[in-house]
């Protein structure tokens, strides 16, 4: 594995398998009465969040704490420009304080790359702008692997605002690396330029795609995209691209529904679908996020090869 985790593109199939295997091992810690191992004792992890994201921050915080690392949360909402202190100065400050890893969430695409140039610490991308969210992809793959024997030929549809979605980019990269067959489903206005080069199939028709999928991953639709004219109304979006009970019935019996959260119930996902005990693995995704992030911190911060 590379020193930092910036992009899912930096991970080989062997890297991904190693992360998922390690996560499976570390998941057992969570089942213990005392949910803690001493692996990263004495190491310091900083959660540097320039955007609100309670669930991702808490997930990283719990992951680090269960490995006995010290955790500091640095919440610096707003861009570097509006805040007055630059990202570079923040980086220098954290470096001077001796942090070992920086988990960064930032509204600007590429911010983790800039940070990695300025610090010696390990940098983990926890979501940058409209670019990537590699740990989300890893926890999604972990969740899929719990339900399916492998990724080779696994059919995964990613539905929604692919253009602005960091979850979609990282998932496409990681899933195609593992040999899955990805189909992107969205109105043409929410697909990126030259998406045909991504190694994924593309469709504008959810109903045509649904019956063939093993996994259907829905992306969050942001109201501001409707205001910017990418689609006419939330109602029309839900009608064409929302997963409701009728569409759930059209899916294969074994197929699962995923969502990175937070959900817009009634828009991209109907409440009865989100709450479907047989089909929805959305709560599993959240739980698995902790194990996967434990595995990443463990591997990146160079813990011992064998976990006790």
């Amino acid at each position: 594995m590379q020193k930092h985790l910036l992009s899912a593109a930096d991970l080989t199939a062997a890297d991904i398998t190693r992360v998922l295997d390690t996560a499976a091992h570390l998941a057992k810690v969570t089942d213990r009465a005392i949910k803690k191992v001493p692996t990263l004792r004495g190491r310091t992890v900083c959660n540097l969040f320039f955007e609100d994201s309670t669930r991702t921050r808490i997930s990283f915080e719990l992951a680090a704490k269960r490995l006995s690392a010290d955790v500091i949360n640095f919440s610096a909402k707003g861009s570097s420009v509006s805040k007055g202190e630059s990202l570079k100065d923040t980086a220098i400050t954290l470096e001077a304080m001796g942090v070992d890893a920086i988990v960064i969430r930032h509204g600007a695409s590429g911010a983790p790359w800039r940070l990695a140039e300025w610090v010696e610490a390990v940098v983990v991308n926890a979501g940058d702008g409209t670019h990537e969210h590699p740990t989300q992809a890893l926890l999604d793959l972990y969740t899929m692997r719990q339900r399916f024997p492998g990724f080779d030929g696994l059919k995964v549809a990613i539905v929604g605002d692919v253009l602005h979605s960091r979850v979609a980019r990282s998932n496409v990269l990681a899933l195609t690396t593992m040999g899955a067959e990805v189909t992107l489903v969205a109105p043409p206005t929410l697909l990126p330029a030259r998406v045909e080069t991504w190694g994924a199939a593309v469709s504008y028709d959810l109903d045509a795609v649904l019956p063939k999928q093993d996994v259907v991953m829905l992306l969050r639709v942001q109201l501001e995209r409707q205001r910017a004219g990418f689609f006419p109304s939330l109602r029309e979006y839900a009608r064409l691209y929302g997963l409701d009970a009728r569409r759930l019935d059209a899916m294969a019996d074994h197929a699962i529904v995923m969502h990175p959260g937070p959900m817009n119930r009634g828009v991209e996902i109907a409440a009865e679908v989100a709450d479907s005990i047989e089909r929805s693995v959305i709560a599993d995704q959240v739980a698995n996020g902790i194990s996967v992030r434990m595995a990443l911190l463990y591997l990146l911060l160079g813990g011992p090869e064998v976990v006790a």
Partner: protein
Amino acid sequence: MTRLLLQGGRLVDPASRHDGVADVLVDDGRVAEVGPGLDGTGAEVVDCGGLVVCPGLVDLHVHLREPGREDAETIETGSRAAALGGYTAVCPMPNTDPVADNAGVVEMVAARGREVGLVDVFPVGAVTLGQRGAELAELGAMARSAARVDCFSDDGLPIREARLLRLALEYTRAFDAVIADHAQDASLTDGAQMHEGEVSAMLGLAGWPAAAEEMVVARDLLLAELTGGRLHLCHVSTGGAVELVRAAKARGVRVTAEAAPHHFALTDEAARSYDPVFKVNPPLREKADVEAVRQGLADGTLDAIATDHAPHAREDKEVEWAAAPPGMLGLETALAVTLTELVEPGYLDLVTAVERLTAGPARCRRLPGHGGPVAPGAAANLAVFDPAAAWTVDRARLASRARNTPFHGRELRGRVVHTLLRGAFAVRDGRATR
């Protein structure tokens, strides 16, 4: 020292179609004689054996940041960078603070240029007041000022309203001035960070489609045709735009156009580093566009190489990509990038390359004494360079106050040895004299 003999150099003078070994005798700031084996009695002899002697380079498009952002560049540091790049004339854009939209500011810029005295500074005036695109600035007053402005542009803030551009093209016919337009449709590029394509999609950066440049180029060409006004297109960067200009020239539209070195030397792939040193407007485009710009320069569709030299303070570029202002340095590397990227691979021969850096740009405006011909009586504005000398760009060693060169670390061929402004050394043996 008023007499100089540039001896034994290869004189490349596109305006007189001269390419061959010839001496140039300079007397009292002017070219006295040109020819083989001139008598150097009473003159200081400068050995130019193995070197190219040509008219001083002309840059139609620079930002010198003075007044307003003297922390990024000044007329003095920018002039020094220009002279070191072989330039004897530069045209600073009006987006200063205050904006160069009146006779006072353009006169101040021109006067400061004269005071520094390393290159001639020909300011470009703003087309509209404050570059706000609402009402025409006093173009006549700037044209008749001591700065004698003959080129106007709202560079960086393109004129949105077609009617206003039409009026500007018509109004400036009275004093035969040029309107230079930065072609960019605002609604298609709102929030845009880089060229729209495969790379922008993967990087999650909002795209600036080629069509946003091409549709405005098409509009501008139609308005030039309608009005008979003189149009100049800044930094043409797409294959489609080159094609539109080519077709317009073929049907006789009064248009000239420039291309920037970064648009024929770099592609959008550079953005993968997320280093904003590669952020520029218009953005770095794709390989096919680079190829089209090279062809456009080769066949004369594009008249001039202009740097769009855009210095930015270090702290303004050491930020996230989206937070950084667009723009890159160009003055000290343009000649070498041209030789390395256009001449060496055979897109342009040396004479044509020199033409696009000298006589070509000089033709786009009235720049008395610049661009050649190197003939008796002409002002001795000359550059002497070693076309074979290899050097590695080091941003720490630039004369510009800023450091944002996209060519840092690149090995280039072609090094300026001397630059003469009216017969006086502005650069001698690769060093600025002031």
